[in-house]
């Protein structure tokens, strides 16, 4: 049986459940109303989505979907009223919660979990889909990445009307290209890595299995690839980032080359991975008809999505918090730190193993932490798998007397701050639930807004 639509009364009740959850101190409550709706009537999500006059756009990827969709929201903000699951609640229930709180929104903008994408796409029938990258991530939850790619391919086949915005630098994503697709990528071999990283995933030709040859590898297996045997290669880029300048932790700049002309973009975020996010966000905005000048202005206004990259003042010290959640993302965090003018001497690294972090913690061994070790005087390993993390660093070559194990996050943070001189900056690298918990600790001391406040 169908719950009748409009369900303004039910919607109000469900939103109240979210408020109650917050009032009860049970975290953001961002998915509680959506979970109820999803239980009561999954089909209601389809109906709610139809109320968006400008339709929906979806963003999915292993890495960067929160940042990319936040960038898109910033670009579109002056011209369109956007409903956006900004707090990173990216399963069907999170999308449903956002749909319940549409207000006067015209366009739905949703970051979607890789595994949830087929279901969300089937229900929302998006106008545009941005697909960013596929890296190995939480194999215990998602399965092997080729299985994810196959599911995406099957889902796209049922959405012939949707326009695709694809990262051509990822072989699996570029291969999803079809008529009307807008392909984006990086085009500046000076910024390439000298060699493929250990965590590179799609390194063998999708067609014939021969190892790809890279004219340039930028992040993991993302880059300008070509199969020497059968010739399968990166598709031509419609939207490209060229003439890239990296200014350490302070940001970056690049030339955005588009079918409608070129423009210089300044970004307050570090690292090549954020240039991928920005180029993807720009391509999607262009696909929606946004003028190039609005695209570059939006990117220039943008500051980081919550928890991905944050500087938080804590008394007379600062925290630099960089989320780590899988090998490719963590490698980029490490690279950003190592290339900054003052690489960290003290770091707190936090490994939890809740479902949202991945119960299988073996991924930490696929991260190239080694470049950090030379400069580290002290490492505080924390989180529910602190000892495991300490082993990763010990066997990676960090002397055991430089490693402290403190599973309790708040105590580890205090220890890290105590090791940081006044005026200095403490680097904190947490997994997802550890990041949420650490933010809560810091917020409890009045230093930073809770995410559901800043996302409101």
């Amino acid at each position: 049986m169908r719950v009748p639509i409009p369900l303004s009364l039910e919607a109000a009740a469900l939103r109240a459940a979210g408020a109650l959850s917050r009032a009860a101190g049970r975290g953001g409550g961002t998915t509680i109303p959506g979970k109820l709706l999803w239980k009561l009537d999954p089909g209601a999500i389809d109906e709610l989505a139809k109320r968006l006059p400008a339709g929906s756009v979806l963003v999915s990827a292993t890495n960067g979907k929160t940042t990319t969709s936040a960038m898109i929201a910033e670009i579109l903000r002056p011209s369109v009223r956007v409903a956006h699951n900004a707090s990173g609640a990216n399963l069907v229930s999170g999308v449903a919660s956002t749909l319940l709180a549409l207000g006067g929104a015209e366009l739905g903008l949703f970051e979607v979990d890789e595994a949830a994408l087929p279901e969300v796409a089937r229900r929302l029938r998006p106008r545009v889909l941005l697909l960013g990258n596929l890296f190995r991530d939480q194999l215990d939850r998602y399965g092997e990445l080729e299985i994810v790619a196959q599911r995406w391919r099957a889902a796209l086949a049922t959405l012939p009307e949707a326009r695709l915005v694809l990262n051509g630098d990822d072989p699996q994503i570029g291969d999803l290209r079809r008529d009307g697709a807008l392909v984006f990528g990086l085009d500046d071999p000076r910024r390439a890595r000298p060699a493929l990283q250990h965590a590179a995933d799609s390194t063998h030709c999708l067609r014939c299995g021969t190892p790809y040859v890279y004219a340039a590898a930028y992040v993991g297996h993302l880059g300008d690839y070509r199969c020497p045997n059968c010739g399968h290669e990166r598709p031509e880029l419609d939207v490209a980032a060229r003439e890239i300048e990296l200014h350490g932790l302070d940001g970056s700049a690049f030339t955005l080359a588009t079918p409608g002309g070129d423009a210089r973009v300044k970004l307050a975020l570090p690292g090549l991975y954020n240039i991928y996010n920005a180029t993807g966000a720009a391509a999607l905005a262009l696909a929606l008809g946004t003028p190039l000048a609005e695209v570059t202005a939006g990117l220039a206004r943008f500051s980081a999505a919550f928890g991905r990259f944050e500087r938080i003042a804590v008394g007379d010290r600062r925290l630099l918090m960089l989320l780590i959640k899988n090998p490719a993302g963590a490698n980029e965090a490490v690279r950003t730190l190592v290339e900054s003018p003052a690489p960290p001497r003290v770091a707190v690294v936090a490994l939890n193993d809740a479902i949202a972090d991945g119960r299988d913690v073996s991924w930490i061994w696929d991260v190239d932490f080694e470049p950090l070790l030379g400069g580290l005087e002290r490492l505080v390993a924390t989180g529910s798998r602190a000892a495991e993390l300490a082993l990763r660093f010990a066997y990676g070559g960090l002397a055991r007397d430089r490693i402290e194990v403190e599973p309790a996050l708040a105590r580890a943070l205090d220890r890290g701050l105590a090791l940081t001189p006044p005026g200095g900056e403490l680097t904190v690298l947490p997994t997802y639930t550890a990041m949420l918990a650490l933010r809560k600790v810091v917020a409890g001391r009045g230093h930073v807004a809770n995410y559901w406040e800043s996302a409101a």
Partner: protein
Amino acid sequence: MKIVVGHLYPDYLNIYADRGNIAVLAERARVRGHELDVRPIGMGMDVPTETIDLFYVGGGQDRDQALVVPDLAAKSEALHEAAAGGAVVLAVCGGYQLLGRSYRDVAGVELPGIGLLPLHTVAGARRMIGDVLLDCPWAGETLAGFENHAGRTLLDEGAEPLGRVISGFGNDGASGHEGCRAGRVYGTYLHGPLLPRNPWFADRLLTEALAHAGLDTELAELPDELERAAHAVSADRARRRGGRI
């Protein structure tokens, strides 16, 4: 003493943090005054049967695993010869399956293995994912790890498992067996990776590899405080949330 490790297909079979296992072997050899010399053995390369003391085979995605099958068949004879000569073999996850006689995938297609371990594997519908704890009475120790496999591995009558499942699914989710060992050839689904939190097993492999290299020795004990702490947490995870047979 130099211990020569032959790492089979590191470019293809490396998905479950196999380099963690290698790093543990290298460091634990080093602090005892030995040196680990790791040599990749890739597609089309010969197996230097005489010189390798320990072979390592990791896990890969299904596609990568299928890509190495024909090449592994060509190396089969050399690997049998090496194992018969006392070389140590450790195979994890996908590599473990490839050491059996065969692997039948979901479509019913039979991939041949090299038959170094007395077992065969049949793909199942549901993946068996979770923390695992094993009792290894043959060593008086336990092993803690993480499993993630669709294959159901069935040991031949009389074959020795690596351990008995205390918590988790194990080889097939029914027999109570996990892994297989035959002489110095070991196969297991446990990653995590396996060796950092199970140092006794790393030391056993090193001792056997040293014996193959011509040195009968007992390795000095190490403090292993972090290792024990990590093992305890992992074992606790398995008890609380490992798969149930």
